[in-house]
């Protein structure tokens, strides 16, 4: 298979934005629902995290629903207090939905380039961020 180092011409893959469109719609729906629902009134206030109930510690997703609700109400301060990474996901998802809408309109934004070294650094940074986020939420829950 290509033993002499000959360069193969790759073909453009079909890039139907089906997944991007579905994810964008679902994300906007989740934001809208989180913004509309009365999270702190019964029966929704009955929803308890089983991990937290069992261990007294929050799970990695604890506070995300409130973060989404706060982002939907444009209360970014409350969103970051509820769950910093959850609020980043909510805001990032809205950005992704905007990018998908632009893509549907024929506007293609450049995809960020990342070499192997930067990708490895990004992986480590994300792992550290998830851990720091959990520590932050745990300290808030403990107070």
């Amino acid at each position, binding site marked *: *298979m290509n033993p002499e180092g000959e360069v193969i011409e790759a073909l*453009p893959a*079909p890039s139907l934005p089906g*997944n991007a469109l579905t994810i964008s719609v*679902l994300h906007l729906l989740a934001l809208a629902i989180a913004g509309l629902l009365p999270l702190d009134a019964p029966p929704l206030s009955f929803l308890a995290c089983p991990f937290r109930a069992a261990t007294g510690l929050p799970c990695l997703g604890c506070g995300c629903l409130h973060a989404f609700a706060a982002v939907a109400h444009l209360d970014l301060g409350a969103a970051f207090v509820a769950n910093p990474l959850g609020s980043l996901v909510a805001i990032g998802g809205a950005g992704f939905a905007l990018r998908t809408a632009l893509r549907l309109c024929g506007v293609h934004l450049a995809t960020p*380039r990342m070499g192997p070294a930067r990708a490895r650094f990004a992986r480590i940074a994300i792992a550290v961020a998830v851990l720091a986020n959990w520590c932050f939420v745990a300290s808030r829950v403990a107070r």
Partner: protein
Amino acid sequence: MLARCPSCRNTFSTDLPGRQNCPVCGKPLLVPDQRPGGAAGPPDAPTTDVAGHPSPPGTPWERRSELGFPKAWASTVAQALFEPSRLFAAVRIERTAAHVGFAVLTGTAFSICNQLLARALYSPARMRRMLATAAIPPAFDVETVIRFVHPRPAIFLALLAATPLVMLAGFYLNALVTHGFGLLIGQARRGFPATLAACAYAYAPLVLLPVPACGSAIAIVWLAVLTGIGLKHVHGMGTAGAAASVLVPYLVLCCASCGLGFVLFGAMMRAILQ
């Protein structure tokens, strides 16, 4: 082998033919298989798997136009449950719509069966009889719990109508978190559609949802195991990487994925404490 991206015209080294993203510009492309008998490379041609096996034939569900809908669905579920390696080896990852359709159809149908069966089995009168035999604290509000478990018909119908959307959202959430962790450990080699395919066929055990008592628990565990097997096949992940990619979503999405059983349990505990 060296390949040239059709978008940015940069050349890059790759070990495998098939669909992948350009490491320079990130755009999706298709590297034609140069081996004898390999896929010629048009966009709708079968791709090769990570192990290099050419042209997977497609799962029965992906060939439902030739097999017929009921037979294709039943064969796919049977293979997923009892011959998962054979099923995942046949997956054509570019058939995203078919994968999403299988997962949402299977999950929705059996979740609705489960809800109807639960409503028929746990009538308010029967729940009152069950709770009357238990040692309940004086402050326990039985009627609140019964209303929560057995909502009014209009609410129940609304819940049934929302099931496909909930199933679609849960499916994508599961696939996104699984793929995100696969990327984090550097083992998601074939892109999001491959993870989506693994997660889709892993929904086959949801046929057990209507089984009273233990059906849901068995379905969730089986789903996790099948997702791991699927990831190993479609991405060529190692066992540890596949296990981590599958289990982490359950940790991250603990609140979301533990299901109505935990919600009910939490509600009952809250009612008891109040």
